[in-house]
């Protein structure tokens, strides 16, 4: 490349580092958010019309009326299987249909009958089944309360912030109908009530008359301009809002993606958390600005209960959080405690979306595990990735040509560092035409891929969802001729500026378009592709360099719907269509691997995500932990941050620390910006090469455990990377911790993320529990802050006493090379000399585990001085060549002998070593196949 730089970036950047906030809207600059936020808590104008109540086997319906403008809403309440309640509110008779999010729920959630417990003129009480849970519908003003016993778990509209901007016809003058008054100052005269009900109140023409005096014309209802972009808003105002109160709750989490702490902050006095998929250039940490993805799911947690709120809406959304304890000092809280202050802590949350309907799933827990299962039952679980995708990925914008790829590949072998995937960014294409190759730099892609395949390695190429408008480009021509492009408000193909220059944006919301897109990944369509080539979807917010807020115009059309209605869903569809393409090309046999930057609720079903374009700064290393923890809580386990930082060049220390941290995060990929100096692991001197090699090797050795965790994430929706409170829900000390985390239940990781650190203080949870340093086997007691002196080689990781973790100690060039290698079991005994663990094995890359039950799932238990392996999945069958090489028992005492018993009745003595200083017993070479039953008895 010559001095020509990425002109686009050069064009839109200022020279200073940091996000250009002026490119993105604040709530005040987003007309609907401003209107809604101006509405303050108070008496709700909504009233439930109890006489309209209908109760069927599956749901309760009820009309609501806004006494200010007489517009009626329809409320639907469902009791869902698995302790969930669904609340849907739409206009009773909308002028035209309002958008309801499709393709996110994996099915129509199965319901359970609601039964009416009591009813009077003030409301109704419904039973939510067991646990004395009740749902109370109050009529005037309308509100919902979910109770368990005498305790209110959650209330809706208790602050009166339910607001529904009904669809209306635009008047020519500035006197358009604005029936919804966003101010509560006016109280509707009582006497109109009956009259209203006899009218079919929602004919807008009729409602108009009475409502007129309340009408208020506000800017931005029918048109809104931000910077140079005008949003035409042909449907006028359509926003919705609802408040939730959570008594007894001080901690809320989730609603990614934000570069912020794990525990969400109160937003009073600042902007709300924003959910709107955006390509944010050089984002800053610790603020509520929107980023690339949006998952409108919030978890609430207290020592008593964990719950979740899933706001199923794909439009631009803002979330306000306030808390009656947030502003209080520790002293103030103490004082409350001492004085027995009657005020219980409470968190209030308010959701505001630009269009669509209110469709909320309230997941009632009560445990974190329950909430994960509940959410998984709605939107599905993490796609089970090919095992190799859990290994190390080497990426850079860009590996320049085939020779470069070969040289980097060889570099890993020369320095004995394993890797599984090498990635090609946009420069590999012929002029940013995806599905093609630069004819000079990559003239023989299959030779290159075969070279990687020969080393049992893989490649990822980038395929972005913007298509160069070029009549000599097959992909463009087909999309255009099939009418698959998103349309502009005027009906022509929507065009915007992105990497290739002028680009079209395929309408991924169209199932036919997705099917066609998927077919493009067939080996005979995507020329030069092979089975060891996978896909990366970047820029799928979508990014439109010259669009408003660097994304698509909200009035662009996806069929009948505006981008406004489904904006946050676009990225999910892109990843889905691509994943389906990879499945199809293998005839449905192989598991796909697709990385995407934008995502929505349900994206976990299609692959991995990463935290986008971060920077080589210590703060960005730190924030990678809460960012991935937040995603894990809402279903997306396969998360990672660019190791080393994308923008700028890391110091050697930062790079090493980032490898050490990334090695213990789910998606482990190094990536770097085009303008940064090269940073392959061996470019920083032999000492640093050795440090990075060691970090990567620790990752590879632990792959069996990672794979097992992902199997569970896929199977039951439990996150892989977990905040401590998930496993220690009563330990308040853990509630806001986000500088350390758990992998599964059994490994606690406290990465070193401070420059020049001499030590870290890790919190080891669990009263009466013990933790073992995985490197030294040193035992530590739980429920303590442990100061750990660190050197540049330290990666503080602890194994929970009571767990058994399998590793493969023979680290090879790639994970595929380790397929048949034996296992070493690390048995960490609890103080009661007990331990339990699992092992999951399958072929590592096909769907046969699911379709043909071809897998091994073992339970290891240590109790009464005997360690045994039992089958957890008797219905399954799979043969492995792997065997048990070594058993390391931590916290053991010295036995006189160790006897291995196999099901054929044979017994043999095992040699062992005992390290008395650390109480570590090592059993030499049990040699049993990992798929078989066996027992080792210690005497």
């Amino acid at each position, binding site marked *: 490349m010559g001095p020509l730089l990425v002109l686009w970036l050069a064009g839109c950047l200022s020279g200073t580092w940091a996000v250009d906030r002026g490119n993105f809207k604040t709530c005040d600059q987003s007309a609907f958010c401003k209107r809604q936020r101006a509405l303050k808590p108070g008496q709700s104008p909504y009233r439930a019309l109890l006489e309209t109540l209908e109760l069927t086997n599956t749901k309760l319906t009820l009309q609501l009326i806004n006494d200010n403008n007489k517009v009626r809403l329809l409320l639907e309440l469902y009791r869902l299987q698995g302790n969930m309640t669904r609340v849907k509110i739409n206009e009773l008779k909308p002028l035209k249909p309002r958008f309801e999010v499709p393709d996110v729920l994996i099915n129509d959630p199965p319901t359970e009958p609601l039964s009416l417990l009591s009813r009077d003129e003030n409301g109704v009480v419904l039973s939510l089944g067991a646990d004395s849970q009740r749902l109370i519908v109050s009529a005037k003003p309308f509100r919902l309360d979910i109770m368990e016993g005498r305790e209110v778990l959650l209330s809706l509209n208790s602050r009166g912030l339910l607001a529904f901007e009904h669809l209306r016809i635009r008047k020519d003058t500035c006197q358009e109908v604005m029936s919804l008054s966003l101010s509560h100052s006016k109280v509707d005269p009582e006497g109109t009530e009956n009259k209203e009900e006899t009218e079919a109140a929602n004919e807008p023409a009729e409602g108009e008359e009475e409502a007129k005096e309340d009408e208020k014309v506000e800017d931005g209802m029918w048109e809104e301009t931000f910077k140079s972009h005008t949003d035409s808003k042909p449907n006028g105002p359509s926003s919705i809002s609802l408040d939730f109160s959570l008594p007894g709750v001080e901690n809320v989490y989730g609603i990614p993606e934000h570069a912020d702490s794990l525990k969400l902050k109160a937003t009073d006095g600042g902007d709300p958390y924003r959910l709107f998929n955006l390509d944010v250039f050089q984002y800053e940490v610790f603020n509520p600005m929107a980023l690339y993805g949006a998952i409108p799911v919030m978890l609430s947690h207290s020592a008593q209960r964990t719950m979740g709120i899933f706001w199923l809406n794909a439009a631009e959304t803002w979330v306000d959080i306030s808390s009656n304890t947030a502003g209080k000092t520790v002293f103030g809280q103490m004082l409350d405690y001492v004085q027995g202050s009657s005020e219980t802590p409470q968190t209030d949350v308010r959701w505001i979306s630009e269009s669509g309907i209110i469709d909320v799933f309230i997941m009632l827990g009560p445990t974190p595990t329950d909430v994960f299962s509940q959410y998984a039952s709605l939107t599905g679980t993490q796609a089970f990735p090919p095992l190799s995708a859990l290994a190390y990925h080497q990426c850079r914008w860009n590996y320049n040509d085939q020779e470069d790829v070969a040289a980097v590949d060889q570099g890993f072998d020369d320095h004995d560092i394993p890797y599984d995937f090498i990635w090609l960014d946009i420069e590999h294409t012929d002029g940013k035409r995806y599905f093609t190759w630069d004819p000079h730099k990559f003239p023989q892609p299959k030779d290159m891929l075969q070279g990687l395949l020969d*080393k049992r390695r893989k490649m990822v190429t980038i395929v972005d969802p913007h298509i160069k408008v070029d009549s000599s480009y097959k992909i463009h021509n087909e999309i255009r001729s099939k009418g698959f492009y998103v349309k502009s408000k005027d009906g022509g193909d929507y065009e915007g500026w992105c990497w290739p220059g002028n680009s079209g944006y395929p309408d991924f919301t169209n199932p036919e378009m997705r099917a066609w897109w998927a077919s493009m990944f067939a080996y005979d369509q995507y020329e030069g592709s092979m089975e060891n080539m996978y896909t990366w979807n970047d820029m799928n917010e979508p990014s439109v360099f010259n669009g408003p807020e660097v994304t698509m115009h909200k009035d662009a059309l996806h069929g009948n719907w505006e981008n406004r209605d489904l904006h946050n869903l676009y990225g999910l569809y892109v990843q889905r269509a691509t994943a389906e393409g990879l499945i199809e090309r293998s005839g449905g046999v192989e598991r796909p691997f697709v990385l995407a930057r934008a995502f929505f609720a349900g994206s976990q079903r299609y692959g991995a995500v990463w935290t986008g374009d971060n920077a080589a700064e210590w703060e960005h290393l730190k924030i990678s932990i809460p960012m991935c923890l937040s995603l894990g809580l809402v279903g997306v386990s396969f998360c990672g941050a660019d190791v080393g930082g994308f923008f700028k060049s890391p110091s050697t220390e930062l790079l090493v620390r980032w490898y050490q941290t990334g090695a213990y995060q789910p998606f482990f990929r190094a990536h770097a910006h085009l303008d*940064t*100096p090269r940073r392959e692991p061996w470019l920083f001197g032999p000492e640093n090469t050795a440090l990075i090699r060691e970090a990567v090797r620790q990752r590879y050795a632990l792959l069996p455990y990672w794979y097992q965790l992902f199997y569970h994430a896929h199977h039951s929706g439990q996150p892989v990377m977990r905040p401590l409170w998930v496993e220690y829900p009563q330990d308040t000390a853990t509630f806001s911790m986000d500088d350390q985390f758990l992998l599964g239940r059994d490994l606690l990781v406290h990465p070193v993320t401070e420059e020049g650190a001499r030590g870290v203080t890790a919190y080891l949870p669990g009263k009466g529990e013990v933790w073992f340093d995985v490197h030294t086997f040193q035992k530590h007691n739980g429920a303590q802050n442990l100061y750990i002196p660190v050197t540049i080689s330290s990666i503080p990781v602890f194994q929970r006493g009571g767990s058994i973790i399998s590793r493969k100690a023979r680290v090879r060039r790639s994970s595929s090379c380790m397929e048949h290698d034996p296992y070493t079991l690390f048995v960490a005994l609890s103080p009661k000399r007990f331990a339990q663990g699992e092992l999951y094995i399958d072929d590592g890359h096909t769907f046969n585990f699911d379709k043909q039950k071809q897998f091994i799932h073992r339970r290891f238990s240590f109790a009464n001085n005997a360690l045994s392996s039992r089958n957890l999945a008797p219905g399954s069958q799979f043969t492995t*060549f792997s065997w048990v*090489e070594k058993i390391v028992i931590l916290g053991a005492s010295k036995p006189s002998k160790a006897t291995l018993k196999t099901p054929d009745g044979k017994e043999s003595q095992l040699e062992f070593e005992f390290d008395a200083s650390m109480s570590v017993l090592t059993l030499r070479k049990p040699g049993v*196949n990992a798929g078989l039953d066996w027992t080792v008895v210690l005497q």
Partner: protein
Amino acid sequence: MSCALLLLLTSLALVMGTGTAVEIQRPRGVPQSKRQFYEENKPFTCLDGSSTIPFDQVNDDYCDCRDGSDEPGTAACPNGSFHCTNAGFRPAFIPSSRINDGICDCCDTTDEYNSGATCQNTCREMGRKERESLQIMAEITKEGFLLKQQLIHEAKRGQEDKQGKLTELQGSKKGLEGKMEALRTVKKTAEDPEKEAKERHLKSWEEQKELIRMEKDKTRMAEAFLELDDDADGYVSVAELQSHLELDPDSDGSLTETETQGLLGGAGKVDTSTFETVWSGIKDKYLSEGLSDPPAPVETPKEEESRDFVSDHDSDHYPEDYAGEEEDVEDDEEDDDHEEEEKVPPTVQTPEKREDDELSMPPYDTETQILIDAAQKARDDFDEAERALREVDGQMKNLEKEIGFDFGPSAEFAYLYSQCYELSTSEYIYRLCPFNRVSQKPKFGGSETNLGLWGQWAGPEENLYSVMKYDHGQGCWQGPNRSTTVKLTCGKETVVTSTSEPSRCEYLMEFTTPAVCQEPASLDEVLHGHTEL
């Protein structure tokens, strides 16, 4: 793939369930040189002495020794290594982790004895190819090395020439210095009488001028008196003088009676003789009644033209322009400087000269003129000598710079000095001017980019002259200044063979030259040397 898998199944079937490795006859993966440590049926002591194990635990697919020495033939030890004999090629050690990983690493296939990988023994083929390429390399090296000797010879001669020229210059410098000193004395000797004569001439002219001026003043005074004495009574009165507002001492626009009286020395009127004293006080301001307009301002001469002329010289000093030419560029430059000085016409003429326009000095008398001419000649001679000396100095400086350059241990790289080599790619023309700069120019229009200026030799310690580093090139947007690393390899010809940009704005250039060819060992030695690895 499926075929390989089948093989895998059959070969591993034996292993399954027991976990023991396939039986082998003798310690696998042990090099000949270490065979003595692996004595069958005797306890094996780890090579680091850390422990002793029964011999049947050697290569039993379980790592017992900390140094990995008990498992030379299996992948059990993380730090082990495996020796392949590679008959027909050269033996090699590979990390233990590459044993039975399904990838053929040893050309004799011995590393994949139990993975199902179908490896072909390629040692003979590889050996043949290697010998061929070594042969080719050896020939290149041989010829290259011969060329190198020539280069060294030429460099030596060149160096000697330069040294000789330098000595010569040093000699002529001395002569010139002597000459210059002599001429300086001559100049001084000639200039002293010149100065005296000129001063004398000037002084007499000044005296003469003063006389003329006084004469003129008297005339003006008389004229003024007559002009002022309106009533021709032979006296200038207060009233008569009062009409001359320009004489107002406080410049307030009015000439009062008192003020006028003051001008007249307190008297009411003055006669011709007293007016003499009054006149000296007012003559500078006095305006003759006949010509009351102030004199037109003196036009300043235009300097721009001469400046333009000077600056023209600066436009083309880019090193590029002389890179291909022979040496004495700097001399040229200095010559230019001289010319500049001389071509600059004398600037502004002295204003005095103008004022007394009509009073031009009479020409020097013959005697003085002879002295002046003599001095001017002495000056010219001196300047000439000084210029010659400066020229010699410049030449010496260039030579010293060139002689001082690090052209390698035997100055074998000297021939690259002031040469340039180009490589044309699909987009750019790259240009390497060794010891000077690297640049890149788009093929289809656009300006040239500086990819770095000569920095230093940057090879590894044992081979310093294998890499050149050029840095401080044009700055990159949001990035460092461009820089280029030039890797030198042995070749018969001096050519840039490839360029790349492995990292943004960090260029890599491959360059072949005979100057890096090492003395070739005989082909046998080469091959033998390799077998020992």
